[in-house]
């Protein structure tokens, strides 16, 4: 169910990577005189088998329709099955649903904030300095992409649980982490921490350290360099990373499922609440909450598309400047 709210991580990485490749110079100019002939050949090569093209396009459209468009539409249809009034009631009248929405609205921004700080720091360190363990750090940042969220959740249980390493000590100090919001925040942050860093590392490497060095020779202090020089250069990439991170944080299910304990009205986030309502055969209410997450996903998609264009534009401006 989770995948419906946030695309799987691999797909998103591919998108982020495509942003980077688009920044590289287009190899069209050097062979300008030969270009028309080459294009003509290419076009003919692509155009000849009309039936192949049509079949492929239809196939792609059909797949997208069945796997993406219909389910998304269906979410809204189901949510409004009993009319808009009922829809509104499902969302606002159930205190447990209300709590789940509020919890998600708290956890997601908190996780995003943590990951922004961490991501900028890590990307900066990796892009600007040569140090032992740099490659290891890059690999570790990628880890949440390859580890199943459920496994990540279990790792936190082993760490903070009563049978875990820190559990008994924490209990003695009366600090509650597992089965309460700190664990949800930790698990969500863990699963989403690559987004910002992965977006910024190639961007910072592409921009290079020259402007920052220039700022040093002009007398700027480190925070001034970051605020006036580095941040304006990476702002679109950073926003892009934050948006992706936020989308993933809101939809996170697996890791949160394990560490939260699923206590209704206390540790249920929106995705957990949707699952619970669904299990209770309350599908209209379940779809009503799901529609909110879907809507957020659609907004994210729109913002992401806009930002992708901005990232590429700013990179191109940079190319000209050099």
């Amino acid at each position, binding site marked *: 169910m989770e995948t419906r709210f946030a695309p799987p991580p691999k797909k998103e990485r591919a998108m982020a990577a495509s942003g980077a490749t688009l920044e590289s110079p287009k190899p069209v100019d050097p062979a300008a005189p030969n270009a028309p002939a080459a294009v003509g050949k290419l076009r003919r090569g692509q155009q000849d088998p009309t039936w192949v093209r049509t079949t492929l396009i239809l196939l792609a459209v059909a797949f997208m329709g069945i796997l993406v468009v219909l389910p998304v539409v269906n979410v809204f249809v189901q949510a409004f099955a009993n009319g808009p009034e009922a829809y509104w009631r499902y969302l606002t009248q159930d205190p447990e649903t209300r709590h789940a929405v509020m919890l998600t609205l708290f956890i997601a921004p908190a996780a995003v904030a943590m990951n922004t700080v961490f991501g900028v720091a890590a990307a900066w360190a990796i892009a600007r300095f040569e140090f032992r363990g740099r490659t290891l750090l890059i690999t570790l940042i990628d880890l949440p992409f390859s580890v199943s969220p459920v496994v990540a959740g279990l790792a936190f249980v082993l760490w903070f649980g009563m049978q875990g390493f820190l559990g008994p000590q924490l209990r003695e100090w009366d600090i509650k982490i597992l089965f309460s919001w700190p664990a949800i925040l930790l698990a969500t942050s863990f699963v989403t921490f690559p987004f910002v860093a992965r977006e910024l590392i190639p961007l910072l490497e592409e921009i290079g350290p*020259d*402007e920052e*060095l*220039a*700022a*040093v*020779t*002009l*007398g*700027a*202090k480190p925070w*001034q360099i970051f605020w*006036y*020089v580095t941040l*304006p*250069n990476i702002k679109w990439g950073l926003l892009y990373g934050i948006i992706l991170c936020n989308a993933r944080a809101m939809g996170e299910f697996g890791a949160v499922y394990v560490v939260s304990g699923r206590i209704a009205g206390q540790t249920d986030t929106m995705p957990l609440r949707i699952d619970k309502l669904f299990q209770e055969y309350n599908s209209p209410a379940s779809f009503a909450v799901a529609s909110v997450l879907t809507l957020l996903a659609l907004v994210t998609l729109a913002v992401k598309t806009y930002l992708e264009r901005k990232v590429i534009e*700013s990179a191109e*401006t*940079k190319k*000209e*400047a*050099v």
Partner: protein
Amino acid sequence: MSVVVENVVKRFGSFTALDGVSVTVPTGSLCALLGPSGSGKTTLLRILAGLEHPDSGSVSTHGNDLTKTNARDRDMGFVFQHYALFRHMTVFDNVGFPLKIRGWSKAKINDRVQELLHLVRLDGLERRLPANLSGGQRQRVALARALAAEPKVLLLDEPFGALDAKVRQELRTWLRRFHKEIAVTTILVTHDQEEAFEVADEVVVMRQGRIEQSGSPQQIFDHPASAFVMDFLGHVNVFHGRLDHGSPRLHGATHGSTAAAERPVSVAGEGTTPLYVRPHELDIERHSSDGSLAARILHINPAGPLVRVQLIDERTAKPIMVELSRERFAELVLLPEETVFVQPRQVRYFTADYSI
């Protein structure tokens, strides 16, 4: 503010970029660090700016040791090879940046930026972004920005390296005048000897992390200290030769006494040595004379203030380049494939090359 570099050593891993370099640049002068790539000139400039730290040795301006001072507190303006303008800031904000971070008021910044833009002839371009400027304009924005906070020393890394030939020539002349106007001690790095000679009061020739020679352009051109400097300064003919009772003689030359040596001989005896002759120090003759060398004309390039004649020493198959005045060329009426005689007016040799 005089700049003194003492015994600076810098290694990158096993590569020694600077090997005990000492330079003194007098207050208000314009000094060029000249050398091929890998000679350590840019490393030296970055050490001066505080962007690199020397393994040993010291840097000071006017008696204040700056070796341990952070780059941002050194009071030096640095212009990067590719300018490193802040791409998201307008020309105005770029030039005003060092003032803004020093907490100047808006009005004061405005006055100073206008003054600087006027100084570098960029009035009216305040609102442009660096991407919308030509190479030469960016270069001058970088210069104005580096000068904004009134640095005591100005450092330029290959200031004309990224520009095309015509703009480069204009900017050289302009920089020369500009330096007179601002009178800030300036050190620039270049690999182009013509540029160094045209712009600088003082030239420091570097090679493999060491200083090969330093002095005024004329001193260096007229009295190169080594074969490397001689070769680096421009086209030079190298002949096999020997010292004959203290007089240099080209191998294969006809008998008789030869041209005057550039320096009195400090080594007694006889031996073989490479002899260096610049193209304009060679003359072409129709008939053999004392000390001349037979050569065949390969190509004549009469386009230019001097006529360049390429010849080949048929005995050794080595090329020889001669530059003649247009009058002399008209007098000789040379044609390709003719065999003529080359006579040196001046010959240089270096004691380091000398072997018995």
